[in-house]
């Protein structure tokens, strides 16, 4: 394998899994439409799809908490409404992540648009993440919360997000290529 290609693949691997270095990492997750939903008090549920982008203060985590910021949100409900971060708030999704995977965003500021827009603050948003090997990556995010609409009853929001398919493919390619390269290198040494 050419050195340049090897370097690029290694870089891709590091970027995809947020790397072993304890530095801020950008993690892009895709909502799983089969498990992400809006469930009204009555009537059919809507599916949710889209992506959310996190900036995690330090991956892999040590023994202490780290910052967990929602820096991107582009979600669409099957009924047509879109949900993004409130662009009028400078830091709309600042939170904290625990080593056990539990996280808290004290207030998440979002904008919901369907024709007109409404800005909403979601207090005390909690959930959990699962880590990849060595706690160097995030492989799954889960949250669930309720919205009381008053006369309309409670809407339950369920979100399950995993590394988006493109990211997974890139990561898989990188891992596979590096594994092949390593095996070939070992074979060359043994010769």
């Amino acid at each position, binding site marked *: 394998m050419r050195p340049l290609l090897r370097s690029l693949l290694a870089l891709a691997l590091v970027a995809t899994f947020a790397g072993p270095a304890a530095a801020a990492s950008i993690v892009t997750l895709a909502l799983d439409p089969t498990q992400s939903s809006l469930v009204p008090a009555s009537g059919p549920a809507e599916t949710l799809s889209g992506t959310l982008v996190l900036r995690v203060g330090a991956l892999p985590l040590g023994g202490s908490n780290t910052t967990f910021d929602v820096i991107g949100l582009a979600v669409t409900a099957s009924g047509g409404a879109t949900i993004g971060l409130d662009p009028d708030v400078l830091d709309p999704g600042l939170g904290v992540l625990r080593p056990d995977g539990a996280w808290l965003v004290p207030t998440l500021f979002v904008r919901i648009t369907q024709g007109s827009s409404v800005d909403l603050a979601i207090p005390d948003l909690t959930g959990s993440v699962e880590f990849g090997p060595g706690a160097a990556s995030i492989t799954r995010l889960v949250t*669930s919360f309720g919205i009381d609409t008053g006369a309309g009853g409670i809407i339950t929001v369920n979100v399950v997000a995993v590394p988006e398919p493109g990211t997974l493919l890139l990561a898989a390619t990188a891992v596979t290529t590096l594994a092949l390269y390593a095996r070939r290198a070992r074979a060359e040494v043994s010769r």
Partner: protein
Amino acid sequence: MNARILLSALAAVAVAATGVTIASCPPGGVTEAMVQRAYLSVPGYAEPHTPGSGVVGTEMAPATRVQQILGPTPTLNRVSYARFWLPKPDPNAKPRTIFVLVPGFISGAGPFGPLARQLVAQFNGNVEVWVIDRRPNQLEDRRGLEHAKAALQQPTPDVNGFYEGLQFYFPETLSTDIDQDGAIDPPYLLPDALGGMSSWVKLRQNDARFMAYWGVDTYVRDWKILVEAARAVVGPQGLVLFGGHSMGTTWASVFAAYDFDPGPGVDAGYSHIDGILLLEGGGVGAGSATKPTLAEYQATVNNLATATVNTVQVFLPSFFGVLDLATLGAGAGMAGLDGVYRAGQPSLLQRTTLYVGSLIGLIYPPLLASETLIGLFLDEDHSPAAALAGSFGMSDDGDNQDFTSAPLVTTPIYQPLDRADELPRQWKNFDDPTLPTCPPNDPVAVAGGSRGCAIRNNGPRPAPTDPARQWGEEREVSDLYEMLAVQYERGDFIEQYFASGRPNLDFQFGRDSSSLGDESLLAITQNANVNVPVLCLGGSNGLAPSEKSYATYLGSIATPASDQEIFISEGYAHLDVLTAKRNAALPTLTSWVNRLLQRKLLAGF
């Protein structure tokens, strides 16, 4: 589910954690109108000389006038505040952040309403705002105000009841016939707290000698009680942010610098809070060049407490030495009622001694609509205390003339003159698209055809190291009609008995009272150690309009520069920082809270 219904439902938001906590709100999202306000009073610091302390041999007996207002055995060691919050279906749902804020010079909790409501709504109730109403506010005689309000709140407003309220505070004279019945009516009497009937009970200095002990020590200990109550609500991982507006920034920074342990230990105020918010004020200064000695201090306190002449003042008797403060406060309350219930009609306050033959009548000679009288006092285009005012619009339906040469007037303001048709001058609110601008109108208005202009340009922004000065294009941002009820609600606009004797003595020490040598009297000793984040919000047309306004204080504390932030809202006047409808500083304030909370939660949640 229909998408539009979904949007409406989501717009309702108040979302909760993991389905455990559910909050509600109707379609359209959280609005400021949904934010609740309550005026609360709880036991305060047990200052021993104060009536109601129960400390035998030290407690001072209440004067008859105080008893007429509060009853035979008043308990004055109380701390009051206006709480702004968003009700939630789950009574256990608590905010993560509480602001505890101190009003400025002779002011109350009321003007904080617009900013407080915006903050609470912005965070969907995850933030509360508690605005302190200082102790002397409980000494105000509100009987006439409540009588008049009850009369006006009838399905068919009873104007006679309002007349009675006016006659309670402002007895008729030869030149004031309030109800225009052709007779000089006697003062209107109402039941008092001693079981008698009396007209307005206005305190004299000798009625309130206990206020000799209402200085910095008493106040900050009052407020520490609120800070501790706020901490109990938000918990150790939440934020308690302490701040103030105008002179309230002095109080807030003194709170942070205070050592609450009168002994050799240190219990610093800043250790109880997570940040300091300075609104249109530069915090505590260095104080007088010469500080009182302990003997001088004790002698002054003793004189304040025992004097028998009213010239020894424990409270401020007048506004800038010319307008009786209690009278102004009572009049403002009644004028607010007049403005709310009789909007657009001729002001009835102009029939009272508040106006007739007084300085106010000289400053504002024309016939005025009820709300115009308030507007002229609050607006930076017209107010004789323009430096303390806001941008509420303007009255331009008659000539305005330059009034800069009048006594005490230091900034360009307009004196309204009679309308040509002699009808009442009306108020043009902040959002009226026809507010006069300059150009084309001349900022220096002269009698006989000029109206002046509401929006001036005060020039380029000074560099951070330049001397502080006003700059930028003025903006009209505050709703006068929102300020009318503020004049008469509990926690109103004017503090009628602003404690001045003891605080003035204390403030001679500025940010360090170590030289006094007795921490049981005054203990401002920790300023140099203050290390919590500080956010300063000013207005370019206000009293603290640029970075330099805050530099001295920020340079006196240990907070690193990375935790010192300054944001100046261009065009905002002094009050606008509190009263603006869509406060330009809200994004900065929101971001500050978010970042501080994240930092706090890193320690554990």
